[in-house]
């Protein structure tokens, strides 16, 4: 009795000191036995300008391409992938595309590096972080800083997943980039999921599990406040189970997961408040290939032996019957604790690695898509343990298949291929669109495919005609378009000139193609917001658009030199490029010289803020400007000058002094932080759009000023003189003022 109490107290003590979160990050332990102290490999936000990791692409690009594929299309897919990770609002890490990079321009600032290499046959891409060998202490705890992350792609772009205009190339880059940011694989159909369960697309490049993973690694305060958590412990014969995967699964929607610590504890974060989740635990499949946590000597910490896959049971023993499993609700900012499992070990994993397919003609698409307006449907599923292992594979004895979210009985029958079954199912009326889990069970086994099917309102889009118009626009005609259909020319979205009109049978959208390159033949693909695209039904002969001849793109940049440690506006003009909003990147060839933001002022002029690291080496770097598929590159086009200790220097971002946010507007008080901003009391003069502003406070490191009433929205050039020296101009974005709150209305 006394022993039990001591054990209970000891366990409670361990729970209080254990870091319970063990997402699929790269983990190192600082000790060899319990209680373990996991630390993660991640970028040091304090070492990144504006907390932004820039991905630079080696200018030694691929050597071979498929027909109609180009290096610039590859660059744009990398750019699109950075945008996907950058959109995660609950992550404090910003991700940006930095253009081209030369081998001899190494920066000191941590960055992501995309290189093209002569990879061995059978290898199409690799990604992962480079970290220092030893952990360091940071303001938010000990971590292992990533110094550089590498995405290695094949120099031969005739091999899959190329050509670059395919959705699969894009999702591959998103996936490899996730590794580069510090994430490992999961088993939840998310972008970081292993191949057989992944169900992401251009419409859904990241899933809830990816968002939780990156947000947990680089959390904003809002992440914990806006989401809920589930925690518990997985045991077998009273011992904690290490590296079991615990998954929170909604009936319709996206799963989120975590791995158990060596003592079996786990915590799943990033869950949607108000949603009820089933929770299940499963062993890593034999092919899991998770990079095990490392001990202080760099040796893997062993995973436990396989366990039964079980849903949560009321008595915590686990059940294979989901209908007997209670759901778990979460609340914002709260942890629902005590979601424990006591599950038996087993000799091996039975059903695993299941993939679902639907077929459009001869073209198989994974995951399987179903039309919400359909009645009966057949999909295929393939995986280990589903069929008998003979020449006529039949469903294994007692196999039961369920699709969550209102689907009725499902009949599994032979498909005629090894490990593959056909599932005949009826689609329920009023079925929810989106991902639905498939649950496979036998008397002795259980397997869950989190996004086994996606239900969509429409059939996949199809393009029937592409017609260039005299004004440069292009009319796209097809079926199953909607107002949210996006049209891509190779890897770039086209701007909508005339929104969709028509119906599901035939519809039209008129678009402005992205700026094109000389003689480019762009492949056109229509993407619907439900995840389907026109390649589903026309993979062999997608429509193309010919751009015609064009001169080699040229640019003029001013200033073409900025001192180390300084921030300055750069003004880029071009006699023959077309700058399109949202499609321009100014690259300066080094992680130490990055452009924070660009504003397109006209089709031939763009401005941006460039920040040069104080540690940047003086010298020339590669200037490269990308707009759509037009790429201008000047090998020594931009100079980093030696640091100037006298120069007034403004740090970005500029903040709204009232809100602390980056949005500033007419009438707002703005805080500038930096160096040498004032040499004496009241000495600072600031011009905004060449008009003097009212200075409210000034010191060497901070100036507060009032944005004049009536200042128009958009980019405004800010010039500062500290009383002795002119600083380099920077661009300030002036936003629309927020609408007055109801409280303000009452006051007025």
């Amino acid at each position, binding site marked *: 009795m006394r022993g039990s109490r001591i054990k209970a107290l000891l366990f409670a003590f361990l729970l209080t000191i254990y870091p319970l979160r063990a997402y699929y990050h790269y983990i190192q332990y600082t000790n060899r036995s319990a209680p373990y102290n996991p630390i993660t*490999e991640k970028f040091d936000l304090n070492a990144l300008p504006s907390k932004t990791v820039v991905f630079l692409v080696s200018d030694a690009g691929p050597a071979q391409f498929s027909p109609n594929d180009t290096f610039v299309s590859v660059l744009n897919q990398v750019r699109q992938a950075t945008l996907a990770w950058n959109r995660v609002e609950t992550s404090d890490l910003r991700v940006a595309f930095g253009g081209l990079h030369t081998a001899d321009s190494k920066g000191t600032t941590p960055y992501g*590096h995309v290189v093209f290499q*002569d990879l*061995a*046959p*059978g*290898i*199409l*891409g*690799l*990604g*992962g*972080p*480079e*970290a*220092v*060998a*030893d952990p360091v202490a940071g303001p938010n705890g000990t971590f292992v800083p990533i*110094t550089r992350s*590498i995405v*290695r792609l094949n120099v031969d772009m005739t*091999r*899959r*997943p190329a050509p670059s205009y395919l959705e*699969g190339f894009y999702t*591959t880059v998103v*996936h*490899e980039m996730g*590794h580069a940011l510090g994430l*490992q*694989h999961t088993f939840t159909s998310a972008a970081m999921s*292993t*191949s*057989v369960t*992944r169900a992401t697309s251009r419409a859904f490049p990241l899933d809830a599990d990816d968002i939780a993973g990156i947000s947990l690694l680089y959390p904003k305060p809002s992440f914990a406040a806006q989401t809920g958590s589930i925690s518990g412990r997985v045991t077998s014969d009273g011992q904690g189970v290490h*590296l079991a995967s615990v998954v929170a699964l909604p009936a319709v929607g996206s799963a989120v997961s975590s791995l158990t610590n060596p003592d079996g504890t786990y915590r799943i974060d990033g869950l949607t408040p108000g949603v009820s989740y089933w929770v299940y635990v499963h062993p*890593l*499949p*034999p*092919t*899991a*290939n*998770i*990079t*095990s946590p490392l001990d202080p000597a*760099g040796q*893997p910490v*062993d*995973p*436990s*032996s*396989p366990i039964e896959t079980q849903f949560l049971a009321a008595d915590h023993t686990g059940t294979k019957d989901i209908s007997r499993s209670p759901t778990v609700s979460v609340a914002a900012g709260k942890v629902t604790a005590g979601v424990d499992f006591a599950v038996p*070990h087993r*000799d091996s994993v039975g059903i695993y*690695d299941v*993939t679902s397919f639907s077929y459009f003609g001869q073209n*198989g698409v*994974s995951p399987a898509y179903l039309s919400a307006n359909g009645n009966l449907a057949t999909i295929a599923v*393939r*995986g280990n343990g589903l069929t008998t292992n003979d020449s006529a594979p039949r469903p294994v004895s007692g196999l039961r298949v369920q699709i969550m979210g209102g689907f009725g009985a499902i009949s599994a029958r032979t498909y005629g291929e090894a490990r593959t079954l056909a599932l005949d199912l009826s689609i329920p009326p009023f079925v929810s669109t989106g991902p639905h889990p498939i649950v496979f069970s036998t008397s002795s086994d259980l397997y869950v495919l989190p996004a086994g099917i996606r239900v969509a309102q429409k059939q996949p889009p199809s393009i029937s005609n592409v017609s260039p118009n005299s004004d440069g626009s292009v009319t796209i005609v097809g079926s199953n378009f909607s107002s949210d259909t996006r049209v891509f020319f190779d890897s770039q979205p086209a701007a909508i000139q005339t929104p969709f009109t028509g119906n599901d049978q035939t519809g039209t959208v008129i678009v402005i193609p992205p700026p094109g390159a000389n003689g480019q033949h762009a492949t056109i693909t229509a993407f619907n917001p439900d995840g389907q695209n026109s390649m589903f039904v026309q993979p062999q002969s997608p429509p193309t658009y010919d751009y015609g001849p064009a001169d080699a793109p040229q640019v003029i940049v001013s200033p073409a030199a900025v001192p180390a440690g300084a921030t300055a506006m750069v003004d880029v003009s071009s006699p023959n490029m077309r700058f399109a909003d949202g499609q321009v990147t100014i690259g300066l060839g080094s992680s130490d010289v990055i452009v924070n933001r660009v504003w397109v002022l006209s089709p031939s002029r763009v401005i941006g803020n460039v920040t040069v690291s104080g540690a940047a080496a003086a010298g020339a770097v590669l200037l490269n400007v990308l707009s759509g598929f037009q790429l201008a590159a000047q090998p020594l086009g931009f100079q980093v000058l030696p640091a100037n200790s006298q120069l007034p220097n403004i740090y970005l971002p500029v903040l709204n002094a009232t809100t602390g946010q980056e949005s500033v507007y007419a009438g707002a008080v703005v805080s500038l932080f930096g160096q040498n901003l004032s040499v004496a009391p009241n000495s600072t003069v600031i011009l905004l759009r060449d008009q003097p502003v009212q200075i409210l406070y000034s010191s060497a490191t901070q100036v507060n000023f009032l944005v004049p009433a009536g200042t128009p929205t958009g980019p405004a050039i800010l010039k500062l003189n500290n009383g002795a020296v002119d600083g380099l101009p920077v661009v300030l974005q002036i936003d629309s003022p927020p609408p007055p709150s109801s409280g303000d209305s009452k006051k007025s």
Partner: protein
Amino acid sequence: MSSCMVRRLRALLWLAVSTAPLQGATLERLSLDDMIDKSTQIVRARVSGSYSAFSGDLIYTHYRLQVSERWKGPEQASLEVLVPGGAAAGRRQTFSGAPQLQTGKEYVFFLWAGKSGENQVIGLTQGLFQITAGRSGQNAVAYRPATMEIMLDPQTGQIVRDDELRLPLATLTSRIRTQIRRGEAK
């Protein structure tokens, strides 16, 4: 055998299959015949040691191999094979999906040397078979677990499953010799 020992054995087996390759790669599915055709060397060898070093910007783990049998490639009693990732000069690079070889273990290697001339395993883990049992070559089994890396069909680009391969070493040897002869006859 006690239940404790059984559990330990299970754990060791589990460890052996679950931690062998790391992950994070995108692969192209290669058949056994593809690997035989595309290899520049095919050898049976024992890992005698390893070290990690930078090559340009990238860290590779160099595994030293003692060759006991050779089916393709130049005669050498020993050679090195490079696997991406490792720790060197105070840095650690992790390329998920790269195999971790164990010193003292014996494998069949399907190797490929590119322009650099350095040997790499074909298909990351696809071209690596651990010889798992048997005291003689006749009874030995060559085993390669399936990978869960993203694997694409080279023709269609569709994601496909990898399959584990487990076959008697003698059978693998026969397949290798037959396919090499076919290649030479073309």
